[in-house]
């Protein structure tokens, strides 16, 4: 076993840290929460120039040809700086889905533009039932004269309002008992007739939308992967993306500690630093355990994905553990920082919100514990 990042990853991490410290201060994070688009085109282009959009994309499609662990390392720095914008939905959700299911032509059409930051993708998955499980997918795609007609409503679609391409999960067949069939993925242009996008207003200020499909006709060329076999792609994408989300948590957890520890050392009450009180020390020790275990669980799962090893169980373990632990860590940071941390101007609140949002995205702890239980043969 070896717990160390390699040299390239260490450099990537340090460079990303420096870059985001300069380009993504907390004022910018607040500004983007109020901004209608929710991201800065200028920063987006700079990130594309650094090859961040192409981390996972093979060199033949103009990407960096990196592995999943590289991506996780980069996301941890984005999490540290609470970076707003469509990076996650475009590069992780969109990119992974295209890489998993795209035909050569679809890859050649989409990936080079994605890698250059010229095309923003997103994945339209969840519906009003609010669940990631296949039974929750009702949006219908019916074949009519060689075209598919999409009808239904997607919710919680990240950055759909700025996306150039939607990947829409639709029901094309019946769910056969326990077989998870009948789902098909479609590449849809959001400007197409019948697509209506309405923003939702979120706690963490990240941008999500309702996307209604009113008899949207798409050609059979826009099918991504095999018809009716979408779930196996989605499941894998969800598990990988859940690990990537935990990558953000690694950084967010570290940032919350970087706020809390100096604060308790400096804040004096009863004539001594509050850090000298055992009750506070024990909270801080628990934060340290959460921070270290989130990191190790995530790196292990990301490493397994990178190495092409089975990762399903580790991925769900990682998301379940990360979801609970990151939230609890930030809550402890709030507890030891006290009233100051409750102030809007204090940055900890950004992480409090991010922790809950990251927890709920791509399956919370209960959801993933259930998947772990399945992996355990229960």
């Amino acid at each position: 076993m070896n717990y160390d990042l390699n040299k390239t990853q260490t450099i990537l991490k340090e460079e990303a840290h420096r870059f985001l410290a300069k380009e993504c201060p907390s004022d910018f994070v607040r500004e983007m929460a109020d901004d209608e688009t929710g991201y800065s085109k200028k920063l987006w282009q700079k990130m594309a120039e650094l090859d961040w959009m192409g981390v996972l994309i093979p060199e033949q499609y103009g990407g960096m040809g990196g592995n999943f662990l590289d991506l996780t390392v980069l996301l941890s720095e984005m999490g540290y700086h609470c970076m707003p914008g469509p990076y996650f939905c475009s590069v992780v959700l969109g990119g992974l889905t295209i890489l998993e299911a795209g035909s050569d032509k679809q890859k050649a059409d989409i990936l080079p533009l994605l890698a250059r930051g010229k095309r923003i993708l997103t994945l339209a998955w969840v519906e009003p039932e609010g669940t990631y499980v296949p039974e929750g997918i009702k949006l219908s795609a019916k074949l009519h004269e060689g075209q598919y007609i999409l009808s239904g409503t997607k919710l919680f679609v990240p950055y759909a309002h700025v996306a150039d391409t939607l990947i829409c999960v639709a029901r094309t067949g019946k769910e056969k008992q326990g077989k998870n069939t009948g789902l098909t993925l479609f590449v849809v242009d959001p400007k197409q007739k019948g697509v209506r996008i309405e923003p939702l207003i979120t706690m963490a200020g990240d941008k999500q939308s309702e996307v209604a499909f009113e008899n949207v006709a798409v050609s059979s060329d826009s099918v991504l992967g095999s018809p009716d076999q979408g779930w196996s792609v989605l499941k894998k994408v969800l598990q990988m993306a859940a690990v990537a989300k935990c990558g953000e948590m690694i950084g967010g957890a570290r940032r919350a500690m970087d706020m809390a520890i100096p604060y308790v050392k400096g804040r004096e009450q009863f004539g001594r630093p509050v850090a000298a009180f055992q009750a506070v020390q024990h909270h801080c020790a628990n934060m340290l355990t959460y921070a270290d275990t989130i990191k190790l669980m995530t790196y292990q799962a990301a490493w397994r994905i990178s190495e092409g090893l089975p990762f399903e169980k580790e991925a769900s373990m990682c998301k379940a553990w990360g979801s609970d632990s990151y939230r609890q860590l930030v809550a402890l940071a709030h507890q030891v920082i006290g009233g100051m941390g409750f102030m809007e101007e204090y940055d900890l609140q950004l992480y409090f919100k991010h922790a809950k949002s990251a927890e709920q995205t791509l399956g919370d702890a209960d959801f993933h514990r259930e998947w772990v239980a399945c992996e355990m043969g229960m």
Partner: protein
Amino acid sequence: MDFEFSAQEQKVLKQVRAFIKSEVTPELQAESLAIGYCYGGKLGREFVRKFAANGWLVPNWPEEYGGLGASAMLTFAIKEELAYIMPLIFVAAHMAGPTIMHFGSDEMKKQWLLPIARGEVEFALGYTEPWAGSDLSALQIEAVDQGDHFVLNGQKTFNTHTHVADYHWLAAITDPDAKRYKNMSMMIVDLKTPGITIRPLITMAGWQTNEVFYDNVVVSKENLVGEMNQGFYYLMAALDYERMFPLGSYRRLFEEIVQYAKETVVGGRPLSKDPLVRQKLAQLAIELEANKLIFFRLAHIIDEGKIPNYETSMQKLFATELAQKIANTGMEILGLYSQLKKESKWAALSGQVEHRYRWSVVETIYAGTSEIQRNIMALRGLKLPSK
């Protein structure tokens, strides 16, 4: 990064597993269980000598001291394998030995390390006293310097191995006038020395620990570990080794509980189909995975030539709290059956769970309580001030 064992490590682990499978008999299990997995019973000693003959007791020691010159990673992995079947505790090999290796004189290393590595001698920890539990700097037992030997008077308590071990790994005050932390020494005392009285204390796990009384006990200065009055630091080092906690035996119990849940039908369906049961067992599996990662992290740090800092306390804390959760969850899943002891009609899982539930109480107490571990993590790991 790499989160799997190397091919070479896997090869050795396969051999270890096969050895354990063929050598651990029901009689040996029964003897070990009866003495609380202290190593010192007749069958246990036979088993350990055979086990140690492969170099597996101390794989990461240099060959001249009976090891294999192998990695700490392999050493930790072997500990975990053995604990999975039989959680034997080795005071000499895994706590005192590494401390002697670091701080002992060449003579002491020559005298003790080989017999320890071969599994020929076992030590018992001699730290706790009635007025010195978490605060080991408050020891009272005194070793008076008489030229070439010490004369010891005082009392120890909760010294668990002493009735089966050969030697006492003893912390005693050698300079009562000196400041805290500078007043004690470590020494090795033959437990058969005249003047030592061992009195049993029986725990709620049904096991024997002991009070040990020293009445004018003569100990040669040759048995002093390292330097006089530096004992507190050696003790802290030895405690860190003790805290690297293989959770194998609880992992095995957990697997048996999962199996029980799969096989036990209640209300027309297996317990394992109950969403609450699934959530609880999955959560334990997740925490076992996290523990695995922080356990082998310790080996990784040691193999990099560094000394683990707060990481040891984190693992001890995490593992022992998890141990209690596993035992308690087992009780919840077995329900009313969980109360039945192994001798009872209708006992489930051979009464293991109720025993483990009683036993696990001490896990978060010995080798430094959870509170002490959190203190260490805060002070050493996060550099928080102590006042």
